[in-house]
């Protein structure tokens, strides 16, 4: 079951939440809508579900126009950030709800409902809690109940709004792995919204990065990480150092470094920015190697890496990640003057 979103726009008052967004989600795909808060990702998800009505544009589910259908008719499973479980019902009744509200002609009989609910509870590994109330469960368990409840109605697509947002870091990681295995098992077309890039890269087949109501980039996690299409994506998907400079006639210059930049075809010089991830920088005690001189102010061990924080002569911070082995050999210490050289720079012309 595929999802196709065409030219969706949505305005709240004077605030344009979604501005002309189009994309397709293939059958069985797991796609992340990633972006900072207020970028329109949740609004877009709610429009796909039919919980919100777009100002213009169309939503197609399995190729059929669903724009005018309400949420009841669309057959989507929706999982909310704060679970939205029915507090006065047991876990079993919560999961059975979608089946018991069906019109009598399409409602399975009691034994069949019971069998299906228990199957789903086994799938989310909570069958032993079937007679508890939501208030007696932990956050992670509640979210799994919410997921089982959404799956009970056999939705064509599954939409998840910040499904791990309200959980502790540890629970979040476990649940994420579990959800990925579940998706591999049932292969249900799914879209989830998150502001956590690690979560998006870890879980999704494809990541759609949004900013200010528009799509910045749409691609596989490795594409987005390695070939960011815009400074926004560059900044959003991880720590990055930014060097300001100019570009002209196929070359870009940032302070002491000059690199090839074929995109700059004009001979007149234009402002440009070069971006390097902390692991794409090298430091050396050799101050005459053509690097940017900077003073080391702080050394922080961070797992397999050591993070160096430096200040250049214009008091801009530069962050460098070194392999721990290298730091053990070199023994850089705070106060030293070092030379910083980028191994790789991603360059964008500035407007």
């Amino acid at each position: 079951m595929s999802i196709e979103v065409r030219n969706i726009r949505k305005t709240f008052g004077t605030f344009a939440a979604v501005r002309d967004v189009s994309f397709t989600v293939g059958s069985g795909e797991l796609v992340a809508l990633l972006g900072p808060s207020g970028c329109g990702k949740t609004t877009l998800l709610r429009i796909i579900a039919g919980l919100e009505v777009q100002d213009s544009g169309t939503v197609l589910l399995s190729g059929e126009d669903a724009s005018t259908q309400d949420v009841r008719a669309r057959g989507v499973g929706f999982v909310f950030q704060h679970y939205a479980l029915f507090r006065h019902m047991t876990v079993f009744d919560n999961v059975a709800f979608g089946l018991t509200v069906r019109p009598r002609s399409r409602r399975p009989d009691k034994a069949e409902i019971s069998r299906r609910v228990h199957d789903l509870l086994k799938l989310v590994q909570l069958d032993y809690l079937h007679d508890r109330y939501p208030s007696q469960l932990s956050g992670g368990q509640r979210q799994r109940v919410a997921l089982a409840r959404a799956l009970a109605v056999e939705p064509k697509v599954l939409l998840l709004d910040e499904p791990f947002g309200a959980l502790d870091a540890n629970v979040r990681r476990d649940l994420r792995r579990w959800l990925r295995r579940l998706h591999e098992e049932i292969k249900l077309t799914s879209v989830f919204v998150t502001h956590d890039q690690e979560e998006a890269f870890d879980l999704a087949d494809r990541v759609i990065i949004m900013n200010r109501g528009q799509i910045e980039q749409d691609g596989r996690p490795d594409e987005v990480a390695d070939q960011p299409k815009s400074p926004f994506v560059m900044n959003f998907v991880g720590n990055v150092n930014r060097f300001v400079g100019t570009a002209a006639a196929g070359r870009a210059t940032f302070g002491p470094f000059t690199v090839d930049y074929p995109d700059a075809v004009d001979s007149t010089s234009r402002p440009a920015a070069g971006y390097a991830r902390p692991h794409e920088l090298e430091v050396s005690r050799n101050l005459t190697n053509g690097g940017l001189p900077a003073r080391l102010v702080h050394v922080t061990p961070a797992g397999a890496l050591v993070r160096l924080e430096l200040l250049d002569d214009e008091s801009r911070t530069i962050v460098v990640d070194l392999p721990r082995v290298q730091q053990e050999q070199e023994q850089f210490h705070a106060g030293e003057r070092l030379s910083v050289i980028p191994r790789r720079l991603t360059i964008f012309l500035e407007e």
Partner: protein
Amino acid sequence: MFSRQRRNVLPGFRLTMGYTILYLCLIVIVPLLTLPVQSWELGWSAFWRVVSDARVVASYRLSIGAAFAAACVNAVFGLIVAWVLTRYRFPGQRLFDALIDLPFALPTAVAGITLTTLYAPNGWIGRYLNDLGVQVAFTPLGITVALTFIGLPFVVRTLQPVIDDLDLEIEEAASSLGATRWQILRRVVLPFLFPAWLTGFALAFARSIGEYGSVVFIAGNMPMRTEITPLLIITQLEQFNYAAATAIAVVLLVISFALLLAINGLQAWTSRRLAA
């Protein structure tokens, strides 16, 4: 029960607990206990004669019946009012919200006089109702109207915070699972509100059983027909028949207490499951 093992930010468990008991004794328990003591002067047979007098029994039926009817009316319309005031934004909302408390603040006699003027056979509303063959003032119906006025804020004010607590997401979740508006109301919203609803109902009901000021004007106070129990108590007092007055009061007290206990029990049973 009196242990101090758990350290608490509020100091002096013994002091505050002692104060609570003393306060309850002075304000509630002692005055209420003097009732049976005073009525005991009558002796059992005289007590029974007073409280089982046909006129008195008719008044119990009227007081409890009208209070129950009024509480039911308030339960339905109070729910709608509370829902609208909590869920929707509209001009004049804060004014409407403030109006809800008016029955709390208004001297009940004022309410009684106003309602009587409106609903009397020649009153603004009563005139038209009279043409339809419905008489409100000086009938049990009039008493119910007065008690409805008195009880409204109890239901609305108890429900408002609970409705506020009911996330819109819950309703969205239900509709995404295929439930119709009616199914959402019946299976999700009402069960969620039920404990608070019951509390509001019980409060309105209890207040109405004892209501005097607003009722006496509109009731007409005809023996056996429109005489409420509190009025009979006052009548006995005016004749300096204190023992008889307290005897009737004891019966009213026992009935009210039993009803409240039952409703509270039901409420506790349903709300235990909702505890978050």
